[in-house]
């Protein structure tokens, strides 16, 4: 039985118009991501990787082309339906965490469930608690955002992305604001979640973090220039050992 397609795009284009100037941020992106994949999207800044992630995440719409997310034809949906898709099918993780200030970890994680319109999560507190346990913050659920370290805040954000049991987890430079060790911890957490069956798409420009994924897509100038499986995946132990190595200074 073939794996279920979570993402399928056909000839996806995104053109930004700024007065007379047209910028082709994405050109004819054809991409299929199946359930249970862990994909790292890489590319230099301006390569269109963020634009792609925004379109995949239903935060932005393609100028042309088709996009199916978990069986839903997203490019035909209105604003409110897009919001509902984001709420039900996607978990977002941002570089700068984007947690609510002065609010406990538990309340932050509960947030997506407040906007749920399907009524399938009557026990939002329990679910939030479980998600926090899943990311290893069981002892921090009543800590406020500002009482947590960067790595812990990103874990809260990950728990928030998990709580509604989405079809897809999207991470936009999740380790961009973290030090090397915390970055490795977060990458390792993604691996664990992926092992539990979560489909993850992550943007990063750090090759050693991308190496934790199963598949790597490389973008340049709005086009996919390489898309291959990672043969030698990194592990936490390996990455930590690499950190110990003295830096070669020329």
């Amino acid at each position, binding site marked *: 039985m073939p794996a279920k397609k979570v993402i399928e795009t056909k000839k996806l284009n995104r053109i930004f118009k700024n007065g007379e100037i047209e910028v082709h941020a994405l050109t004819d992106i054809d991409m299929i991501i199946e359930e249970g994949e862990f994909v790292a999207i890489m590319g230099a800044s301006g390569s269109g990787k963020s634009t792609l992630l925004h379109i995949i995440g239903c*935060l932005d719409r393609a100028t042309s082309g088709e996009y199916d997310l978990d069986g839903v034809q997203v490019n035909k949906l209105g604003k409110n339906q897009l919001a509902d898709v984001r*709420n039900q099918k996607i978990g977002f993780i941002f570089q700068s965490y984007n947690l609510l200030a*002065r609010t406990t970890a538990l*309340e932050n994680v509960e947030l997506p469930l407040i906007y749920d319109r399907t009524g399938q999560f009557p026990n939002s507190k329990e679910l939030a608690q479980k998600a926090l346990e899943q990311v290893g913050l069981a002892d921090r659920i009543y800590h406020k955002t500002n009482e947590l370290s960067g790595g812990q805040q990103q874990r809260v954000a990950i728990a928030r992305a998990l709580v509604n049991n989405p079809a897809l987890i999207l991470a936009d430079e999740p380790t961009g604001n973290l030090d090397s060790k915390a970055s490795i911890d977060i990458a390792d957490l993604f691996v664990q979640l992926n092992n539990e069956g979560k489909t993850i798409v992550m943007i990063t420009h750090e090759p050693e973090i991308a190496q934790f994924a199963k598949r790597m897509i490389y973008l340049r100038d709005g086009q996919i220039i390489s898309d291959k499986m990672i043969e030698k995946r990194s592990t936490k132990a390996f990455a930590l050992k690499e950190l110990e190595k003295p830096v070669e200074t020329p």
Partner: protein
Amino acid sequence: MKRFLKIFKVAFISIYKNRTRSLLTMLGIIIGVGAVIMTISAGEGATLEVENQISGLGTNLLMIQTKSEHKAGINVRMGRPINEKDFDILKKNSVWMPQLSPLVAIGAQAIGPSGYKSTMVYGVSYDYFYITSRALQTGSFFTEDDVRTAKKYCVIGQTIREELFPGEDPIGHQIRIDKVPFTVLGLLTEEGSGGMQDMDDIILAPYTTIQNRLYGHQNGYTMIMASALSEDHIADAEMEASELLRESHKIMDGDEDDFEIMTQIELQEITGNVTGILTILLGAVASISLIVGGIGIMNIMLVSVTERTREIGTRLAIGARESDILTQFLIEAIVLSLVGGILGIVFGILGNQIIYKVTGFFIPTVGYSILIGFGFSALVGVAFGYFPARKAAKLNPIDALRYE
């Protein structure tokens, strides 16, 4: 409905989590509402005070006096003085003025057994009490006979009693007015001390006595006071007095009067002008405080929404609809405006009370000041809470997230 309750809870939590910001927002509203209530009420209070003083002068009142012009800061008498002859003519011929009283006013030093005071002494006839509708607390007025025979009797006001007879009953005692001894017959009821003139700082005595002993006869009367038959006949009385006096003074047709007749209506018109100016002034002050308060509310609301654009972006990204965000911000704005407005009303009323306690100047808290203050502040609060939030909610979530 359940959704609304959820969002309601979100709004309340948001207000609570951001206590400082919420308090600052409310402070703007509190000050705005309080200032408007206090300024408008102060204007109303002043108007009321002036009106009270006017009606305290008497009813259907006419005051007839020699024409005077204000020159270099003093009143210069222009015609010949109003005198006994004028009074007799009016008394004999008037149809519309049943009560008439001469009034001879002097400033004098009154000395009692336990104190003294510089005050105004009015020489009047018995009719004066009717004309000005003054009543007695104790004792009696002097009679027509007392006036005719120029008895050294007097009736005093409450302020005089306090100064001259502290804690004593003045009736039957003697006081000296510029060295002339007078017997106190009566004590007037308290009229209330106005801002301009203390209506209780007064001594009334027969005008004959004042003329004989203190004022002299050559200058006539200070004025003649009269009351018209009824309010409807004030104009008739005025015309009648004018005709009688023109005849008496032998003023040719076409020449100007050498006397002035002031009626209650004219007095009210004059004070109406004064209070009108006062109201405009206070209205201007109130408008300024409204604008200042409004700008304060507007600023904090705009700043807080700008600050919260990223939060809005986050909420949109995790699946909030535009309407969810709008509902939340609208509830927040309404709650803050309501609570702030109510606190502002309390603050305004308390402020009025404190001013009354401290200065004795009564400020009635008028209903429409509450309405204007509360309404305007609530409107500004809600509008500037809602519209920037609407703008932010309409943003592309990506732009909202990137917002710095």
